[in-house]
């Protein structure tokens, strides 16, 4: 096909165009990846080596920076906090979002439109701007400066999109499935749990990834809610860490590399799911 079009006299898409496209794409991928590569390479260097030979390959056996970051700083604590906060938020989002999405999708009700509008509003409104009342509310609930302050905030932000993803999928399932189970005398909870939900794993994965990446990476809410160092998440802890070791660039790059590693590796392994999940709101 391509050969045919490029031979056609009317076609104005010469080989040089394809070459230009290739050059642009390679240059772009280089710009996207090279900073990450320099970050990783610098993490294996001493500060002096970084300043003198910024682009040289390091001695990869020199892992002193990593040992220091993991052994002498609070980075492992930040890491555990990030996992706890992200994990709990995602579980809450999936459980509550699936329940509400199921009700909206599978049961006729006059209140459905109202419920959907309610969640749609939550999807559009940037909660960041309501951070002052949220701050006071969390203080009154005694949650300020705890991991729960972040978990409830992230769950509230993530719920609407999860409801829409789950409802959209569950609505597409044929009603013969549940009717058959209903004739067999299965209860409604049983139909949901054993018949419908086993089919709903793909949208759950999308809802999970769509929310997990921004939650894992969020910096704004920890900055406002968390003061105690032992409860900081990775992005927030990173600012503390970067402030402490300002002159030790080897340490700084090692810290950044350690913070970036989990999500980057996960992305490389599951790039299709990541891309699908993270663009789910914008691609219909």
């Amino acid at each position, binding site marked *: 096909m391509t050969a045919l079009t490029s031979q056609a006299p*009317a*076609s*104005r898409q010469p080989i040089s165009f*394809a070459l230009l*496209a*290739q050059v*642009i*794409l*390679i240059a*772009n*991928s280089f*710009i*996207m*990846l090279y*900073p*990450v590569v320099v*970050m990783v390479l610098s993490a294996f260097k001493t500060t002096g080596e970084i300043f003198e030979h*910024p682009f040289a390959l390091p001695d990869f056996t020199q892992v002193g920076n990593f040992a220091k970051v993991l052994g002498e700083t609070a980075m492992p604590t930040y890491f555990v906090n990030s996992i706890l906060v992200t994990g709990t938020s995602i579980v809450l989002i999936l459980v*509550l979002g699936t329940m*509400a999405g*199921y009700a909206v999708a599978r049961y006729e*009700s006059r209140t459905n439109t109202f*419920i959907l509008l309610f*969640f749609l*509003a*939550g999807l*559009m*409104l*940037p909660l*960041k*701007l*309501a*951070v*002052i*009342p*949220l701050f*006071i*509310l969390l203080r009154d609930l005694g949650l300020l400066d705890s991991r729960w302050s972040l978990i*409830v*905030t992230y*769950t*509230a*932000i993530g*719920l609407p999109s999860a409801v829409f993803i789950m409802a959209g999928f569950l609505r597409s399932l044929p009603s013969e499935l549940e009717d058959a189970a209903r004739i067999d005398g299965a209860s409604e*909870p049983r139909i949901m749990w054993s018949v419908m939900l086993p089919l709903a794993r793909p949208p759950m994965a999308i809802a999970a990834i769509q929310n997990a990446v921004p939650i894992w*990476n969020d*910096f*704004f809410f920890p900055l*406002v809610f968390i003061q105690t160092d032992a409860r900081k998440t990775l*992005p927030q802890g*990173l*600012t503390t860490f970067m402030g402490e070791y300002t002159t030790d660039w080897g340490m700084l790059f090692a810290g950044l590399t350690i*913070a970036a590693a989990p999500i*980057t590796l996960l992305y490389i392994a599951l*790039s299709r799911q*990541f*891309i699908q999940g*993270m663009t789910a709101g*914008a*691609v219909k």
Partner: protein
Amino acid sequence: MPVSPKQARTLKHRSWVAFLVIPSIVFMSLFVVYPILSAFAYAFYDWQGLARGEFVGLKNFREVLFGATMAPVVWNAFLHNVYALIALMIVQNGGGFFLAWLLYKEPFGFRFHRVAVFVPVVLSTIIVGFLWKLFLNPNFGVINQALYSLGLDALAKPWLGDSSTALGALILANAWHFVGFPTLVYLAGMQRIPPEIIEAARLDGTSEWQLLKNIVWPLVAPSTTILFTLLFIGAFNWFEIPYVMVGLDGSPFGTTDVLGLVFYRTAFGNQSASIQNFGLGSALATLLFLFIVVFASMLTLWLRRREIQF
């Protein structure tokens, strides 16, 4: 009073549906609806630290928009948000559109390029901000090091310390971070165009530029709608990149100050001077919120109409 089996069933059914929906409704009401409604109310009060004082009407709003100390800062920051929005529309969304078109043709290695362009998107903005801050360091950053090694010493600058380049550097760091998002959203949009349309145009001898302008661009209008709306909301909520790279004060000399930084300083104070004013902060948040809601809806409606026209 005994209930009939049918009543029992509907009652049971209703409580089952309520059990499914009510936890989410309560959660959203408490942590989204209530804070947003309170944010409006708070703006009408005087605040002493965390304690709410007396009702002051529109005083806080007047101070934010016209006050001698606050208004110049707010309008200066607003202007930078507008610059960022325009620049990112061109660099980030426009660049994403062209990259998507190159990927759409599935040239050699397109799978690799598609994964590569999205790598920075998954990274935390904090990591991206710090990484570029180190790269842009005047003495030891790789950008200036590269310029020195190429003999272009004259071009080396303290990028983030120079009033003329600092905001541009933040915008480019942001574009590096997020360009993969519009690229892949546009790519998905292009892949939904029926291939016959593009083939027919090619066989008719349509030039590449005409094809892009008259066929592809109109047909990916739904993607444009959502990407421009998201960018609009994002540009006026801009906070993390400036916070990490230039600090809370939008240095040098406020040339990188944006509304997100002004809001944070006003509401939660500065490291140097920890004055916090929830009243002014809430007024600023309310105005920003209304601005975003009104203009984002108008933008969406206008872009939607445009979708139908084509």
